[in-house]
């Protein structure tokens, strides 16, 4: 009886955490259907060519509309999606991209330090180069929580704390002179 009560409490609480922590939108309808695979595989663009801020800022950054137009003034200018882009550029409006990856407010995640440590973008973001539309399922998941409670040790879902930690520990173990912080306040302050 007591166990059932405890389990019920635990369930509701797990549910409550899960609903509280931000997880990203799944497949999202973007204002312009942007194919990462074409840009990366066909045109061999480096991630940081567009996401320029990643190496110097907390944020990876999105390319400005003028940067897009730098190529697309000529390249594929006749395609309907590119014409949408041109319209934004003409109006001087930013493109309202739908956000896929988001950290909770209480977590500090600097792209810069990760780029400096030679962590590949794909390590966290998955094989973006193969995606037409970027999507991800991130953040703590109820099923995972329950498996843990049941005594199993499933791999942590992306962008959950256990997942960050697994990689930090792995880096420290495998790479020389690597000091991926495991200090709480390094990310939570």
């Amino acid at each position, binding site marked *: 009886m007591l166990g059932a009560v405890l389990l019920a409490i635990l369930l509701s609480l797990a549910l409550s955490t899960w609903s509280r922590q931000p997880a990203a939108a799944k497949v999202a309808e973007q204002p312009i259907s942007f194919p990462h695979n074409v840009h990366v595989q066909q045109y061999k663009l480096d991630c940081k060519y567009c996401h320029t801020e990643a190496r110097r800022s907390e*944020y990876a950054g999105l390319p400005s509309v*003028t940067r897009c137009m730098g190529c697309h003034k000529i390249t594929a200018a006749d395609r309907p999606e590119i014409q949408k882009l041109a319209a934004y550029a003409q109006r001087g409006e930013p*493109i*309202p991209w*739908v*956000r896929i990856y*988001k950290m909770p407010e209480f977590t500090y995640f600097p*792209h810069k*330090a990760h780029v400096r440590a030679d962590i590949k973008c794909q390590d966290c973001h998955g094989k973006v180069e193969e995606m037409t539309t970027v999507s991800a399922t991130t953040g703590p998941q109820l099923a995972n929580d329950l498996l843990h409670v049941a005594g199993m040790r499933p791999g942590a879902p992306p962008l959950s704390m256990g997942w960050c930690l697994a990689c930090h520990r792995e880096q420290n173990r495998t790479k020389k002179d690597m000091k991926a912080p495991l200090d709480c306040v390094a990310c*939570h302050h």
Partner: protein
Amino acid sequence: MNRRDFFKVLTTTTAAAATAGCQGAAEKILPLVVPNEQVVPGVASWFATVCRECPAGCGVLARNREGRVVKLEGNPDHPVNRGALCARGQAALQTLYHPDRFAGPQRREGNALRSVAWEDGVKALTDTVLALRQAGNGKAIAVVSQLENGSLGALLDRWAQAMGTRPRVAFEPYGYEAVRAANRAVFNRDAIPYHAFEDAEVVLSFGADFIETWISNVAYARGFARMHAFKEGRTGTFIHVEPRQSLTAANADEWVRNVPGTEGLVALAVLKLLIEAGAADRAFAPAVANVDVAKVAETSGVPVDRLEHIAEAFGHAKPGLAVGGGVAVTGSHAVATLTAINLLNAATGNVGKTVRFGPDSAYGKVTPYADVAALTRAMAAGEIELLLLGPNVNPAFTLPGGVKFADAARKVGMVVSFSNQPNETTALAHLILPDVHWLESWGDYSPREGVVGLMQPTMSPIRDARAWGTTLIQVARAVLGSEEGKGPLPWPSFEAFVRAEWEPRVGPNWGAVLQQGGVWKDVAPAAVAAKPAPVDAVPPELEGDANGFTLIAYPSFRFYDGRSAGASWLQEMPDTMTQAVWDAWVEVPEDAAKRLGVSRGDVVRVSSPHGTLELPAYVSSTIDPKTVAIPIGHRYVPYHVAAGGFNMRESRPYVAPAPTSMNPVALLGGTPDQASGALPYLGVRVTLTKTGARRPLAVLQATHDQDDRELVRHVGLKSAREQALRGGTGLHQVPSLYPDQQYPGYRWGMTVDVDACLGCQACAVACQAENNVPIVGKAQAAYGRQLHWLRIERWAEGTAAEPGNAFLPMFCQHCEVAPCEPVCPVFAAYRTEEGLNGQVYNRCVGTRYCGNNCPYHVRRFNWYLYEFPSPLEVQLNPDVTVRQLGIMEKCTMCVQRIIAGKDRARDEKRTVKDGDIMTACQQTCPTGAITFGNLKDEGSQVTELSHSPRAYHVLDELGTRPSVTYLKKVVREHAEPGRPGRGHA
């Protein structure tokens, strides 16, 4: 494309850490339309400008993140403040993001203000000017600005000339006209000199509150600390003569209480004693021929032996510095007093050494109060048809009650205010054309000769505002019918005017000057000759009941003349001496309080011939028994009132003080002083009556008595010198059974020099700004629920009438053996391997056990969900979590700055070196009382100081082993608590 246009399109939602995250509608991220090399999202950029919260004109660096200013710091290159900033400067962000800022131009329709389009507003003004000019009545136009001695002033003067108006009035409520008048009389210079506190050995101040507001409080506090703070055995002496124990007085080695208005007598008596002792120029003997020291002692309430002691101390100084003319002691006697002080300086050879004419203060260019009073009379007489009032000009609040400005303003056909937020004067205005905030504007300001600070927009205007200069250029062009590029005002905008003004001065170096924040050069002191004219130190003329109390209306170091009162950080920043927040009070002498039967918080009616105020009493054991004191500048802060509706969660923490007048200036008569044209702030006697009502003050500190707990520790000057020679550390470690903790990398620590701390509270506000610390309102603060991570405590020792005070900045001590940590059930509090007490907000459950177990009580609990009324949330530091309700928080030693500093060092492939990382409190401290650094680095300043002989830990007998080390206050032998001479009865 220039930067301002860029700001308009830069909109990233990614950085707004304002509200707790939750799932919901898909979040949008908006990239830039055009990339910008100056601003990288996620990386701060810094823009130099000049602080305009008071005429001191300190240099400011604004930290801009994603297009919005989130923090202000002093400009380290600026010669006035050298990186430091006072509390008001720190809180300027809250006037920038003031929720009540006008959304755009407003026009009065009936009693209400209605929004109008800029074109309509400008047209209304243009039409009025045009009509007046056509009627040949240009003199019916008056322009009033604050002290503007740079481009804006020049533009205003050109405009006034072109429109044929009256001469512009540069109105500052604190004008120090008496100082100028006395300098005219003695040195034949109509100027306010530079006071080199740093070069003085003894400072003798006659009511000059230079730690609070006097002329240039950051510069002088800095200079004072360099002269006074104990360093390698060297230190100066500071003697302060004032009828009440102000914050400045509390910092004096010797505070001498005199009867109000007798400063001049004391100065003359000291001069006489010096001349008699042969320590001063005998040429000045005739000036003091009539002075009878014994009589002075009787009139001023300063005993003869005290006077002799002062004279002896001052006579030995090579050089000394005598200053006077604080606003609170400016009365009809002020010119005589300051003349006496000038003579004292001249006779002891300080002029040219510590009193330097040449680098004169901008205050010398203030329009004397007499002219302002004359303008008001002209208004009342119906001579003024159009009154233009610049930003920070609030005569309805700052002019004395006797002047009846509001009545006069009602006689004016059109009152136009350029203020960007509502105040007592905009309530009278017919048209409001909001100027941009100084953080959003171009301009320049010269705080003293040789120093010109350049102002640039640090962000785009957050509200629909337009530079005052631009508006006036437009009006002028419309009135004159001239095209752009032609006529007396050919510039398209004020920005263009500023650039045109600077073009000849800087030429191609514009960018570098902009980055530096201005241009400065040393100005050599001018040689001046002193006229030893005899002085008749008469007492001040006081209106009102002869049996009443002399009213001291003194400038608040929190709000200046009231212009900073819109900042809630300042409202909740305690007045260091009383530790009261939010509300104003009347300081009532103990005996009088007993007679009236009032205790702290009882409302007292204060009546003068010109008005009455009802204020809660603060019973003081230190103030002159025939005097009461009220701070100037306490104003009502409308946005803290609940907007209505039943949303307790948001409205409850914001409780405003009672919406009645708290302005002691309203009690003054306002007849200008004949000799100087100054406003006699010391000019009325008031009567007190008990009303029977209560309005309890929110006083944050429970007691000023340490109860022998040695929180603040003293060391006599002599022993401090001996110890400094001998070396060795003052710390004694409490033994432990456990081995010492090892720190693999850095170990962060701090030192606080109690001897250097002046109690100015700048650090407290800097901390609040840096760390997203919310304010809680008066009622909650009164109940001990304030959230300050850093507080300045005042501890008093000695007698109640003449206590010695020490100021103790208290924040998380980052104990090595921290009592807070093991009691936390979830490891939300733990020790990092770099020696910090980490607090993980998202892990905290809110058991508050740590808060109980912290012997220093520095942990703060989020009792409510504290809201930041829009747009104040824009100011929030994106690097720091905004805490949710129900969790503990505390000082983190600015861990976000530590992380950023380590990151920078790693970019340069090195380790952090001393000075790389500064905490917010350390950065802004004018006196350098706070040091932060790596305790494992043997060469770092913090290591050196923590091994100082003066070092101690607060409550060290508990064995908490704090990482914060305090340095004992050095007291002059005669002033040591418990020694005769400090007035131990």
